[in-house]
């Protein structure tokens, strides 16, 4: 799994690629927790390059969403598709989280 972070129009865009499973999720959790601690409160998590996600990955997303909510921040997901979308749907989370197709839409509407 690889994580690339960049600032864009007042938001932090975190692009994650590869697999988000029980082994790799703690690394993403650490990266996102660090951003929240630094008060980066609008985070766009771009999952376009993610080929696989398990409950460990979902836990990381939920935990970050809660931490941001507590600070009146926001987590937005983009590029959720394929198997990753299916897993979010199975968990009943796809309609609950803020999800846009692209970073551009997320920056405009999120």
């Amino acid at each position, binding site marked *: 799994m690889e994580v690339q972070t960049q600032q864009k129009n007042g938001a932090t865009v975190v692009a994650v690629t590869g697999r988000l499973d029980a082994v790799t999720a703690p690394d993403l959790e650490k990266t996102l927790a660090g951003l929240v601690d630094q008060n980066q409160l609008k985070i766009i998590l771009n999952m376009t390059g993610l080929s*696989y996600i398990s409950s460990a990955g979902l*836990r990381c997303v939920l935990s970050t969403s809660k931490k941001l*909510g507590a600070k009146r921040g926001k987590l937005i997901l983009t590029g959720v598709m394929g*198997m990753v979308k299916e897993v979010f749907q199975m968990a009943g989370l796809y309609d609950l989280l803020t999800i846009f197709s692209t970073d551009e839409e997320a920056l405009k509407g999120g």
Partner: protein
Amino acid sequence: MASNLQLDLTLPANKENLACFLGAVTGLAEGAGLQASRIQMVELVTEEALVNVMDYAYPEGDGSITLSAQWTPSDGLVLTITDQGTPFDVLSAPPPDLNLAADQRPIGGLGIHFIKKIAAKVTYARTDGRNVLTIVFAP
């Protein structure tokens, strides 16, 4: 059409070995001719079942997991995950409440939910001091 396939793999129950277990199962599933999207779901279920054991079965220290996978054209894919850890019926855990808002959701419980939702049949038994979880995927 592939003939019957079988694998048995025993490794220490820690996450360093997760990739090896998953690679073995996906390799067998590919050999069986399963579609890529189906293999991903098999992999997900396998991960969730294994990680439960890795996280909870051996609180005092080290132990191992035996993963057996068998594929036949008539019965589909049968996974058996066996450990000698603390007695734990993973199927008896309460299901997650999917009606809660995202920020209300407790963080756990999803792994077992996926196993039950994806597999055709899941059973647990405690036999000879072992937890045995059997997961069946329809052919």
